[in-house]
């Protein structure tokens, strides 16, 4: 443990609470983000993600708890503090009548030590569209400009709120390259996303928020490793009842495949393959899958409270 925790942690949250009327959006939330890491903040709509992020960004007040962002309480964030953070809002648009270059030139005047505009344009891959009006850019290109606006001030910490929502797969991969590149530059990134593969691909650590509290936190691999179960699946051989297969009672049939959950995939697979080889049967589409972050996430988020989530969705829709 270093002597000055603020030097190691870009963000520290301890016991954060925020209510809107009777609705407790965030209840006793604690987490920290280390300097230089990409941290992904996951959770269903209405779980308190945006509330938490906006408190960190200084846009919202809190009811209780300690919050430090780059060592400063966001509620007291001054211009020097603002100069060290970059923000991509979920619902942000640049001015449609200006070009990306003009927008970045204006934005660079807002910061004390901006990055060169051309360098920022190159960083987000907008060279070819730099002098087109924003109104004529595609959704993905506008989002890249948003990221550019968050980077123009050369901040230490960058908040990215769902940066790739609405992107096609190629544009998402391109955005991932940009975000991963921020780590190389030594930046800290606080990423909220709906895409679990995005978190798994980019994040050093993730936290999952549900109903205003953290339900899991750690490196994506360690969260996945925490779940010991693997799934073996294959097309059931014709003329064989599922019950006759090794591991029979545990096998389920879903989506055209026989599925078998096991904590001992090597042994199970050996039995299964031995059984099939003896009979000269080829197990078609045989596959062993480790759970993905998405499986872990869905387990945690859906655990028990389907009605909670329906309620959260309803309140989100109402808002």
């Amino acid at each position: 443990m270093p002597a000055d925790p603020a030097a190691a942690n870009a963000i520290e949250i301890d016991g954060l609470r925020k209510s809107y009327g009777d609705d407790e959006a965030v209840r006793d939330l604690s987490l920290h983000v280390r300097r230089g890491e990409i941290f992904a903040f996951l959770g269903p709509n209405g779980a308190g993600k945006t509330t938490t992020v906006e408190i960190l960004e200084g846009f919202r007040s809190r009811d209780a708890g300690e919050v430090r962002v780059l060592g400063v309480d966001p509620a007291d964030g001054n211009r020097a503090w603002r100069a060290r953070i970059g923000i991509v809002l979920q619902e942000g648009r640049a001015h449609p009548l200006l070009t990306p270059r003009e927008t970045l030139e204006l934005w660079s005047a807002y910061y004390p030590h901006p990055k060169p505009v051309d360098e920022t344009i190159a960083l987000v891959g907008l060279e070819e569209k730099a002098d087109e009006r924003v109104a004529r850019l595609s959704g993905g290109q506008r989002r890249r400009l948003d990221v550019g606006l968050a980077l123009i001030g050369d901040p230490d910490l960058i908040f990215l709120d769902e940066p790739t929502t609405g992107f096609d797969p190629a544009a998402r991969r391109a955005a991932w390259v940009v975000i991963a590149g921020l780590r190389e530059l030594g930046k800290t990134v606080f990423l909220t996303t709906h895409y679990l593969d995005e978190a798994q691909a980019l994040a050093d650590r993730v936290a999952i928020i549900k109903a205003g509290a953290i339900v899991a936190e750690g490196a994506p691999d360690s969260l996945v490793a925490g779940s010991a179960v693997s799934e073996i699946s294959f097309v059931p051989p014709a003329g064989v009842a599922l019950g006759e297969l090794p591991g029979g009672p545990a096998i389920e049939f879903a989506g055209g495949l026989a599925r078998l959950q096991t904590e001992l995939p090597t042994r199970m697979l050996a039995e299964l393959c031995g059984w099939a080889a003896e009979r000269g049967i080829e197990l078609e589409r045989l596959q062993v899958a480790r759970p993905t972050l998405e499986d872990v996430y869905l387990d945690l988020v859906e655990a028990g409270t389907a009605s909670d989530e329906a309620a959260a969705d309803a309140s989100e829709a109402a808002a």
Partner: protein
Amino acid sequence: MTDAERFAVQLRSDLKVFVRNPAALFFTAILPVIFLTLFVSIFGNHTAGGEFGDIKVSTLQVPAFIALAVVSASFVGLTMGLVSLREDGILKRVRGTPAPPWIVFAGRIGTAFVSATIVTAILCAIGAVFFGVTLPTSTLPGLLLTLFVGAASFCALGIAYTRLVGSEDAGPAMTNAVVLPLYFVSGVFVPVSELPDGLQTFAGVFPVKPFVDALTVAFDPRTAGAGIAGGDLLVLAAWGVAGMLLAMRFFIWTPRQQAG
């Protein structure tokens, strides 16, 4: 970079946005010129009569349409511009930067002043060259002071008014609902002397009539002295201060359509 240099960058950017916005350009710069030309052509450039004696109609129409241009540039321009910045989330984003919040207003107010000044000059030039309007000389201080107080006050009112405008789409209707009736009762389209007494008194409570009156005093060749219409300017300034106080109390930075 100093805040003064920041302001220069902001102003340049906002002026660019202004000239690229066909609606703003038309209503602020082109429409007043069309109105002046049409009104004088249709109604003739005869002497005004009544309280204005042998003054030409055009000499009264130039200050009237200057008023319209200034109100468009400042009140309408600030309301529309800031509502669109707010609803696009741009105001919120600017709050997330180290830029001082006033820079947003300063850029738009600067744009209103620049565009109002240019249109005023164009209207004066057209009036002088084509319609024989006598331009203010000794009353120039009064004209400039009135333009300044008017533009500043209508900018403040425009900033305050954004609170009532829920979306970009509502902007044109919401602003016209206020300014069009006021133009009619304040002597922009119709001489005030032709309005019923009650309506004249009613119009005097609002800021457009004192603005038109003060500009008319500066253009009236019979005006002696510097042409400063103190009473009218006080009413205008009072509206401006009220607008500023309301803006400081009620202005919002986050989109209204994305509540919560």
